[in-house]
């Protein structure tokens, strides 16, 4: 686990960092589980609504797989990899606050079946991810917080 400005970045994950997007990817064979990183949930604030694309929806990398609303922020969660939605997380759809309280666990958003594995090399991990996040956190003055409920 790497911690920067109070933001947690678990080991073993890949990270998609593009413009306003900061998502994580956990690989499991041909599937990728996707969620918001700690700084992404902090920047959004307490998330009130979440819509996830239905199972079977094909997405190119960089197109939305979900939309998030917090009252102070509204935006897309982009697909970090091209693929097809296998399963939207039904628990986080019912309780979007999980995105804030457990972003790397119960707050996962979607499982994708990857169709372009060559895109994996564009995701960040290890020291490269740490360096990129350090740069963003300092530039945008982000210090992570977790909602209690």
């Amino acid at each position, binding site marked *: 686990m790497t911690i920067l400005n109070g933001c947690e970045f678990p080991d073993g994950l890949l990270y998609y960092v593009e*413009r*306003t997007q900061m998502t994580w990817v956990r690989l499991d064979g041909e599937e990728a589980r996707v969620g918001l990183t700690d700084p992404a949930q902090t920047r959004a604030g307490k998330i009130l609504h979440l*819509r996830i694309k239905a199972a079977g929806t094909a997405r190119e990398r960089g*197109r*939305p797989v979900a*939309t*998030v*609303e917090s009252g*102070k*922020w*509204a*935006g*897309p969660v982009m697909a970090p990899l091209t693929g097809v939605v296998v399963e939207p997380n039904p628990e986080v759809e019912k309780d979007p606050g999980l995105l804030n309280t457990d972003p790397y666990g119960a707050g996962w958003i979607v499982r994708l079946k990857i169709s372009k594995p060559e895109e994996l090399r564009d995701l960040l991990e290890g020291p490269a991810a740490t360096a990129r996040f350090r740069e963003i956190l300092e530039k945008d003055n982000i210090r992570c917080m977790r909602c209690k409920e």
Partner: protein
Amino acid sequence: MSTDLGTPAPADPTGKKILMIMTTGPEDPDKTYAPFYTAALMAAMEIDTTMYFLMHAPELLRKGAAEAVPLKKGGNLKMFVDMALENGVKLMACAESCRDLCEIAETDLIDGVRLVGSATLADLALEADSVISF
């Protein structure tokens, strides 16, 4: 008989266009936030979203103006204007309103705004699947 009308099922936004017409300017800050927020959300849903600013609304698009519009919950309007632009909302300002009411030159507008004539409003309204007015 139940009176609960429930929540409408999610609509398919694919290929849809929404036009938002904005007539309120900085004179009423409470009416400025929701349109930008809603437009940003719609664009995030992949709806082709355009905001058209006329009457005193183009004042919000003057460089430095959004920073001076306070919001009740703190902060100012700029973060919502930026959010709309980041999400791909198209911002269009009425040339006649800019010239005759607001006295704004094209160079006074923030980056990302297009100055267009009134006829464009007709085009946008006829092409849109829905028109929302604020």
